[in-house]
């Protein structure tokens, strides 16, 4: 049997696929961040907490009301997105005229408060959430056993990412949005309600985080710190892709998932830092990120 870099090719394919699955989460989360930063210029540090809320609300729906996973996929982003709308209206909207740093500090503080509240209520051990019956089990691909649920995560992520990219880059609504970020006064003069559009955009970004949370609930531990663990990596992904670039966030999300997956095979000890090493290199060579526009 021939080997590739000391690893049998079957194992390598398996690891590539796993990387792609992790990349789906990076892509979904960094997409939400990129949308919020690109259109609102807010560095949303509470994104991790909102992802965690997504998983928790899915758990609450199932535990307290018996609403299943499929409805949760629809309801949770709306519920958590609505909390995002409230936060944007009450707090973030007051910071637009200030430096980025204020938005960052506000959302970081919010993240700590949200995590603290959940920790107080539910502890830190995490809560069980089962894979829906329709997606349990898996397929033997020959080189690995692919759980159906993971396959579904990749498909769902690709579809949502593409739809978001299409809506922002190719539709009239997306054009309004992009125009409003360039020159809100002028767009407002055309009779478009710019503040409302911005509020809804923030809500949409938060809803994306919540959706990722629902997708993650059955496979990762549902606990108050789940977002805090992930958010730093996702920020690195956004920085590498180029702050605010939608396409950049999606492609780097998937790409870095694969790079990280390969690191886990060849040098597992380094898998936690490989993304940050890449980030450092990209920042040195191309400070605006791989897909970013140089200002």
């Amino acid at each position, binding site marked *: 049997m021939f080997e590739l870099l000391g690893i049998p090719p079957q194992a390598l394919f398996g690891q590539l696929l796993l990387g792609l699955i992790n990349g789906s989460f990076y892509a979904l989360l960094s997409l939400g961040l990129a949308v919020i930063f690109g259109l609102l210029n807010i560095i949303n540090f509470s994104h991790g907490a909102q992802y965690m809320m997504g998983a928790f609300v899915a758990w609450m729906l199932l535990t307290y009301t018996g609403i299943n996973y499929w409805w949760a996929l629809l309801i949770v982003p709306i519920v958590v997105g609505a909390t995002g709308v409230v936060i944007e209206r009450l707090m973030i909207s007051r910071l637009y005229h200030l430096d980025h740093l204020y938005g960052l500090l506000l959302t970081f503080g919010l993240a700590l408060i949200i995590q603290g509240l959940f920790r107080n209520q539910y502890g830190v051990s995490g809560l069980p959430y089962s894979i829906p019956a329709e997606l349990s089990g898996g397929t033997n691909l020959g080189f690995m056993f692919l759980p159906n649920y*993971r396959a579904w995560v990749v498909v769902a992520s690709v579809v949502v990412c593409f739809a978001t990219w299409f809506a922002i880059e190719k539709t009239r609504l997306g054009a309004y949005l992009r125009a409003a970020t360039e020159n809100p006064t002028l767009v407002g003069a055309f009779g478009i309600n710019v503040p409302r559009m911005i509020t809804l955009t923030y809500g949409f970004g938060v809803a994306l985080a919540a959706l990722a949370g629902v997708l993650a609930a059955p496979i990762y531990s549902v606990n108050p710190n789940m977002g805090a663990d992930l958010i730093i990596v996702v920020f690195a992904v956004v920085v590498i892709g180029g702050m605010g670039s939608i396409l950049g966030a999606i492609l780097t999300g998937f790409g870095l998932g694969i790079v990280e997956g390969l690191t886990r095979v060849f040098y597992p000890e380094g898998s936690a830092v490989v993304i940050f090493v890449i980030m450092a290199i990209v920042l040195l060579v191309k400070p605006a990120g791989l897909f970013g526009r140089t200002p």
Partner: protein
Amino acid sequence: MKLKTLILASATSLLLAGTAMAQTAIKIGVLNDRSGVYADLSGEGSVIAARMAVEDFDAAGKGITVEIVSADHQNKPDVASNIARQWYDQDGVDLIVDVPTSSAAFAVNEITREKNKIFMNSGAGSADLTGAQCSPNTVHWTYDTWALAHGTGSAMVAEGFTKWFFITADYAFGQALEKDTTAVVTAAGGEVLGAVRHPFPGTDFSSYLLQAQASGAQVIGLANAGGDTVNTIKQAAEFGITQAGQALAGLLIFITDIHALGLETAQGLVLTESFYWDLNDQTRAWSERFAAQNDGNKPTMVQAGVYASVLHYLKAVEATGGKETEALMAAMKSTPTSDPLFGEGMIREDGRKVHDMYLFKVKSPAESTGPWDYYTLLATIPAAEAFRPLADGGCAFIAK
């Protein structure tokens, strides 16, 4: 003038009477994780356990006043040392209990020795606390990595699971656990096919699980803890690792982890603990009282260890009639321990508390009658075999 003297005199006599009643005032500090990954298995529950020990001992009726203080060390050694120093130097704390996270426990261990106070550890795992880092001021109560590795490792090999692969958290604790278990497995005639070390903490373990699967091992040893273990087990179920015939051996798993996993995912897992609430009538009765104060959650072995260690300490205070450290340590080590949770036992010269350990198997959802009914007892490991022999620890202060 006369009245004033009278008042003064009576006040003085009252004060004297007061001190005669309360001969000894003790201050106990419960230092543990109150917000992070170990908060559920130690945290406020350990404070409740300490308080219950004081009540059950009837300290007030025996002329001992006990005050309990608590703090969050955030699993950081530097935070733990700061709190320990302040407690000993300024707040008059006599005894520190619990302290999960081995690195934090080592820090408190050193300071306690320096200040000549007493440290009774329940939460931390490293067997070095009574080995290379041992101290005449420290008692290690509940469990250690050696006991866990031997309990689970030798039992699995005895059942015919001889080929092992480790998924190890890449820090001191995980590496120690892997090393200890490897020694047990090879000594028992087993074989270790490989290991993968993952960054701590991690989220996705599927890659390591696939490597473990490809190794052809019969057992995957999980040399990690807390959320990492929970995620590994969850994903092993998802990727059909256990269904394909490989067994999982949890090397440090607490009942709160099983509660978080749910039995559907955790069933069949083999693990070692020193306490389970459903062992006998005494543990059941105590655990019910504990749960009533702890939001219905049953105690972990760490919380049980805090109760038992505080109880044993108070007995020594009563016996010696004071709180002089050498006398108390001598009394605690010379008196056999006896409490409703760990039964009969003793504290060895090196500070190691010795009692039975238990090998459990996690029930399937069908076998379980409800929340917290999680374990089937597979074997009792007698106290004499459960812990590392005194001579092998390399404890420096013990006369050879």
